[in-house]
């Protein structure tokens, strides 16, 4: 089982890294031929950085759109961030001080994360408009997060797992020195689902994470009159005449 999981994680990591890298390189290579920031927009780069920061950290636009979706979405994402940071303890030795410091917050964030996902799913199930636009994969994605979250919470608060063993396995993976993975159904489920998530990341709507940074309506400065903006393929039209 340890070997199986080791192979799974190496494969998942490869898919995640290569997949994301190739997607991002496509986004980088694809030109934005016209200035299309949603105005009012910042007029310079530092303004754009601020706008993007507000968008990524506080979900500014979503806040304007719908307070329920914003509240649940932000709760989920902020909790997820804390939970992920907390998990750094399984990959570092010695554990960095700040990672040790956030351990308790990260543990409770697991609960709020599950609550956020459950709320978002309830919205998807019970609000007519949102149900209409949902595909099976939209539901399954939330189920996936629920399973990961709940299995993690069970190991944290109910049936304590062998965290030392897990850490040994993870450090072993990182050093290409395979260690045994503690035998536990909860852990198997948790890790298998995480690996699945990693693998579908580059081919699913999870691409919203890198995507937001490449969105021309958000990342362009509103300086079209002051600076000529032209894509290579558009410039070619000028030389044809």
């Amino acid at each position, binding site marked *: 089982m340890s070997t199986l999981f080791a192979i799974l994680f190496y494969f998942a990591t490869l898919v995640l890294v290569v997949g994301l890298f190739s997607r991002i390189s496509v986004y980088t290579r694809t*030109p934005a031929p016209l200035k299309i920031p949603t105005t009012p927009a910042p007029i310079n780069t530092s303004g754009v950085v601020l706008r993007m920061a507000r968008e990524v950290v506080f979900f500014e636009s979503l806040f304007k*759109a719908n307070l329920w*979706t914003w509240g649940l979405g932000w709760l989920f994402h902020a909790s997820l961030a804390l939970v992920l940071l907390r998990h750094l303890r399984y990959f570092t030795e010695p554990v960095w001080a700040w990672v040790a410091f956030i351990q308790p917050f990260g543990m409770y964030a697991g609960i709020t994360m599950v609550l956020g996902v459950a709320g978002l799913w309830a919205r998807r199930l019970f609000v007519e*408009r949102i149900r209409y636009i949902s595909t099976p994969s939209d539901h399954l994605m939330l189920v996936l997060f629920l399973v990961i979250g709940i299995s993690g919470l069970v190991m944290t608060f109910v049936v304590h797992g062998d965290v030392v063993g897990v850490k040994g396995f993870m450090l072993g993976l990182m050093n290409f020195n395979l260690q045994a993975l503690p035998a536990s159904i909860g852990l198997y489920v948790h890790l298998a689902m995480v690996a699945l998530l990693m693998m579908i990341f580059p081919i699913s709507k999870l691409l919203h994470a890198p995507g937001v940074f490449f969105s021309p309506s958000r990342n362009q400065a509103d300086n*079209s009159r002051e600076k000529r903006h032209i894509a290579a393929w558009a410039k070619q039209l000028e030389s044809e005449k």
Partner: protein
Amino acid sequence: MADIAAPAYRVIPIIPALKPGAMEGKGPFVANDKIQDALGFPGQLVEDWHDQAIAKMGELLGKYRSLKVYMDACVHCGACSDKCHYFIGTQDPKNMPVARQDLMRSVYRRYFTLPGKFFPKLVGARDLTREVLDEWHNYFHQCSECRRCSVFCPYGIDTAEVTMAAREILDSVGYGQKYSNEIIGKVHKIGNNLGLPAPALKDTLEGLEEDVKEATGIDVRFPMDVKGAEVLLITPSADFFAEPHIDSLIGYAKVFHATGTSWTLSSMSSEAANFGMFIGNYEQLRTIALRIRQAALELGVKRIVVGECGHAWRVAYSFWNTLSGVGEGADETDKFAMMLQKQLDHRYKQPMHICEFTWDMIGQGALSFDKEANDKHIITFHDSCNVARGSSMGGYPGGQFDIPRNIIKAVANNFYEMNPNTTHERTFCCGGGGGLLTDDLLDLRVKGALPRMEVLQHVADEHGVNFMACICAICKAQFTKIMPIYGFDRRMIGGVHQLVSNAIKLGEK
């Protein structure tokens, strides 16, 4: 079209229940082969439309990062789902921005993503069938490209970009829209959307000079094709003959007159509108914009000023520098742009909106007004979508909201705002933008105006508002037509420079 009635106002503006299929088969007329040929598009649906459409989609995905990212990034969160005026007015779920995008996204997933190739049902991917293509033609012509959804999307996904891509694909397989493509043909052939030839335009302008002389006793000129003029005015051709547009044109002329600005119109380039944007075709957009460049070069003007027109101002402000070099900041090596940019006077923004021009002049004390002349009007201001969300004024974010309002307050005494959820960047489209201002879509236009009419009714009841000013030719035409259906007087809509025209003092300072 006597059977078209206004939908009832919502008692509380709640999100309406879904009525699937409500707007099925209510799309626009299809362009005939003559109209298509004139733009170099296939005359009718080509034999291998399926393969060509997919190929075109692939091409656009490689040319426009917006389309590529927007196809990938949507998480179906629903933030946009209640934001579209056409959804609110028609209740058809496919008029929710996300559902409209999904008409294309489902095809994108099927042909361009792994999960869609192997598990189409799971991710909502669909083959591009004839039914899907018809659905595109129907619903991508029920979007006015107003960008209201993009304000609320956490990733800034702009349905307008998707609509433009869809229309571009439809045109490329010979399935265009009559209204937009017919108009673009006229611009190429004659120089304006109305097909108004130079002699007719000259007559009209002379007539205007006489009218203004009669009304004010002053010789306000409406010059055409004057070489060496300081300012070239590019204005929507509706300003030359349509009501209430023409009153704003008189306003611009009076402002130029009162400030002693030498200006000219161009007979060859007598159109600010650029429907090339509506159909999402870069070459069309560019070709139309190049007429203005050509006129500016030929007439040797120092400044280019744009009249009251929403999408035209978006094209001018955001795209002209790219398309035709009207602007500043081109590379020294960029011969195409430098040729024009060397000629223009960069002490002024290029291009400049007529509202920026007038407001600057007011700031310099070059204009004076008799505000009481507008006292019969109790005024509100309708932000036009393309100005609000696709452009700016004054060189700072939000100038596009302040400057027209500042002008109104400088020339009139009674001004009230509408509900803030429907103004500034949250403004609702008039219902006729984006190439939908045609009688074959009248039902859609009436329904799409619902959210604006609701809040207008509110300020009319509350403050006695009897005049809604705006700076868009399409808004003016759309409201003139649909406001009577909602029980308003058609003369309630007018331009900002119409108010300027009423109050401006000529011949004295």
